[in-house]
C-alpha cells in the first residue's frame, strides 16, 4: 500500500542548531501515529514541515502524494492541523473564526454554518458561539481549534498536544472522537505528552529525541524490545531520563537544608 506520509532523510537546522537529523517515516492510510519526545526534541518542527508551514528543509517529504516543497497547497486542502498553542484570532467569536477558516478552505457558507453549529454544540460551546474568544479559557479555545482543524473533513489530521487545557469530559470526548476518526479511515498523526492516551489509541508509536528517531513500532513491539511495562517506562528508558528518582531525592534534600 502506498504511504500517505513519506519522509526520507529529513533534516532541519536553524542557523547552527540542528533540530531534525535524517528522519525517515512511512505512514500507511488509516494509521494512528503517536509521536512523542521530550521538550525541544523536534516534534512540533516535524509537524510544521509535514503540514507545509515550514517550507525549507533538507530531504524529501510527501504527503498524500504531494511534494511538500512544491505542492504544499494541494496537500493543505486535504489535511487538518490542530496546533499546540491556542493560536486563533481571539477578538473574533467562535462562529466568526470558524466561518473565516471555512472560507479559506472554500467551503460553502451554508456548510460552514451547519457544521460549525453542530460541532460547537457537541463541545458545549453553543451558548458562547457569539462571544469574543478573549474571555475564553484555554480549554474552550482548544475546542474551537479542534473544530477549525476538522471543519473541512480532512483525510489526514495532525494534532500537536490537542488535549492541553481540556477538562476531563472534553479529554474523554476528544479521545472518543480520535477513535471514531480512526474507525472512519482517517490517518492521525498525534503528538502528545500524555502517554496513556498515546498508548491506547496509537497503532504505531514514534519516539524522537534530540532531533533523531530512536524508536518506531507498535506498543507491543516497543514493549518486547525494551522489556518495560508501560509506554512511560519505555519512554524514560529510551530518552535517558531515568534519574527521576535521584533528582526527586535531591529536590527534597534541598528543601530541608
Amino acid at each position, binding site marked *: 500500500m502506498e504511504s500517505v506520509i513519506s519522509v526520507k532523510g529529513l533534516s532541519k537546522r*536553524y542557523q547552527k542548531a540542528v533540530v531534525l537529523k535524517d528522519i525517515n517515516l512511512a505512514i500507511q492510510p488509516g494509521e494512528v501515529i503517536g509521536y512523542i519526545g521530550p521538550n525541544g526534541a523536534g516534534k512540533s518542527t516535524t509537524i510544521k514541515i509535514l503540514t507545509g508551514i515550514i517550507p525549507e528543509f533538507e530531504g524529501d517529504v510527501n504527503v498524500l502524494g504531494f511534494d511538500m516543497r512544491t505542492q504544499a497547497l494541494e496537500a493543505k486542502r486535504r489535511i487538518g492541523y490542530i496546533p499546540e498553542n491556542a493560536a486563533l484570532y481571539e477578538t473574533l467569536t467562535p462562529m*466568526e473564526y470558524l466561518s473565516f477558516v471555512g472560507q*479559506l478552505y472554500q467551503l460553502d457558507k451554508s456548510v460552514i454554518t451547519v457544521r460549525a453549529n453542530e460541532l460547537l454544540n457537541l463541545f458545549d460551546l453553543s451558548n458562547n458561539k457569539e462571544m469574543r474568544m478573549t474571555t475564553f479559557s484555554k480549554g474552550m479555545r482548544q475546542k474551537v481549534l479542534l473544530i477549525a482543524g476538522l471543519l473541512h473533513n480532512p483525510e489526514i489530521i495532525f494534532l500537536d498536544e490537542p488535549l492541553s487545557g481540556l477538562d476531563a469530559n472534553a479529554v474523554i470526548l476528544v479521545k472518543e472522537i480520535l477513535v471514531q476518526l480512526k474507525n472512519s479511515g482517517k490517518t492521525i498523526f498525534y503528538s502528545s505528552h500524555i502517554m496513556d492516551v498515546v498508548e491506547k489509541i496509537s497503532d504505531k508509536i514514534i519516539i524522537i529525541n534530540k532531533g533523531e528517531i530512536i524508536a518506531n513500532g507498535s506498543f507491543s513491539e516497543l514493549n518486547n524490545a525494551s522489556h518495560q511495562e508501560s509506554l512511560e517506562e519505555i519512554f524514560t528508558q529510551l530518552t535517558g531520563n531515568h534519574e527521576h528518582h535521584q533528582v526527586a531525592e535531591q529536590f527534597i534534600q534541598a528543601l530541608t537544608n
Partner: protein
Amino acid sequence: MIRFLLTFVDLFRWLYEMMGVNFGQLKTIVATKMLMDNRRTTLRFNQKSTNESSNSFLWTLAIYTILGAFLAYIVFAVPSFLIAMSIYHSYVIVMVSLTLISDFSSVLLDTSDNTIILPRPVSSYTLLAARVTHIVLYIVQIMGALALLPIIFCFVKFGVGMGLLIILTTLLSTSFSLMLTNGLYLLLMRFTSEEKLKTIINYFQIVMATLMMGAYQFLPRMITNNLLGDTFFVLPWWSLLAPPLWMAGFLEIFYSHSYSWIHIVCGLFAFSFSLGGFYFISKYFSSSFAEKLADLGTSTAVTPNKQVKMKSSWSGLFKLKELITSPGIERGAFELTTAALMRDRKLKLKIYPSIGYLFILAAILLFNKNEPIEATLANLHSRSIHIIIIYSGFLMIQTIMAQIAISDDFKAGWVYSAAPIVQPGHILMGAWKAVLSTFFLPIYLLFTIFISIIWRVNAVDDLIFGFVGNILVSLVAALLSEKYFPLSMEPSVKNQSGNFIKVMATIILIGAVGAGHFFLAKLSYGLLVGFPILIVLTAVLYNRYKNISWSKITY
C-alpha cells in the same frame, strides 16, 4: 465601513486575479483583519472593551479628524504658503509613520498568521496580497480622517489646481512614510532580536502617545508663534534634508512660480525618494521581510536562556532599597514593583507618556507668553511658578500609583492570598516606595536642578518643603483610593464609578497643599514653622498606610 471598503477592493478584482491571487480568500482575510482592527485596543483607547459592538477604530478616526481640523486651521491661518505646507506635510509624515509603528506594528508583525493561515490552502501570493491590501486600506482610512479637512481648506484657499497637487504630495508623503517605516523594520529585524524589536516599538509607542497628548496643547499655540507670522520664509539649503520641505518646495513651484535650483531639487527628491525608495524596498527587501516574519513565529530553535540583567544605571536603586525598605514583605513588594516598572512594556506605555506630558505642561506653563525665550528665562525668577512645578511631581506619583495595580497577569496575584501575610500594608508600602524611588526621586532631582538654576538659593526651602509635601499628598491619595496589591487587578476593572470624585478630591488636596505652601512662603519663617507639622503629619499617615489591614484591601 468594512463593506464599503471591500466594495472598493472589488473594483480591482481583475488585477488581483491577473496576479494569480485567489480573490475569494483575499477578501475573507482582509474582511477578518479589518473586523479585528475595529476590535483591537488602540494606543489611545487602552481599556479593554467587553462590549461586542464597540468600535475603537472609529474613535481613533474621530481623533485623527480633530487633529485634521487643527491642521486645516493652520493651513487657513498661516500666511506663509511654504510654512503652512511644511507643517501640514510634517504632520502627515510623522503621524503616518508613528501610527504604523505604534498602533499597527502588532498587525504588521503578527506572527499568528503563521499558525492560523499558513496551514490552510492559501498561496503565499494571496496571503501577501491580503496583507498589502489590508495595510493600504488601513492607511487610506487614517489619511482620509487626517487629511480630508486640510485638503478641503486647501481647495478653498488655493484653488482646484493647487488642491489636486496637494492631494498628490499627500500621497507622496504617505508613500515616503511607508518606505520609512518599512525600512526601519527591515533594519531593526536585521540587527536585533524579536524581543529587542518589541522593546524599540514600545519606545516608539511611548513617543507617539506623548506626541498625541502634546499635539493638543502645542498645535493651537503654534498659531501665535512668531515663526508662523513670517510671510517671507524662503527655502534654506537644509530643506534638502527635510522631506516635508521637499513637498512644500515642490508645491511652491506652482504656487508662486519659483524655479530656483532648490525648488527643482526639492521636487525631484519628493518624487524619487517617495516612489523610488518604495519601489526599491518592495523589489529587494519585501521578501526578506516576509521571511524574517515567518522566522519570528515558526523558529523553534532552542536559544540559550539569557539572564535578564538590570541596567547598570538602575543599580543605585538596589542600594537605595536597603536604606528605605524593611527586609521581607516590604522589600519583596518593592522589588516586584520596580521590576514591573522597568520591564513591563504595557505598563511603561501607560506611564511614560504621562511623564512626558508633565514636561510638556511644564514647558507650556513656563513659556506661554508671547515673548522671546531669553526674556522669559530672565524674568522667570520673579514669578513663584516654581511651586507649581514642585507639586506637579505628585501628578506623576498619582498616575503611576493608579496603574501599578493593573496587569494582564493579574491572576498571578494569588500569591498574596496564599502567603502568610499578617500586615498587607507592607506590600502596599513596598509598591509605593518603588514608585517614589524609580520615578519621583529622579524627576524631582531634575526639577531641583532646574529650579536651583533659575531661582537660586531662594528656592531651597521651597524644594525641601515641597518634597515632603508631595510625599504627604501621595500618602493621602493612597489612603483615599481603593487598595489593590501591585499587579493584581484585572485591566477591565479599572473603569469603576466613583473614580472621578476621588481624582477631583486629590486634585483639590494638592491645590490646597500648594496654596498653603505659597502662603506660608509669603510669611516670615512660615515654612520653618510649617515644616515640623508637615513632618509629623507625614509620619502619622506613613504609619497608617503601612498598617492597613486585610479588611481594607480589594483582592
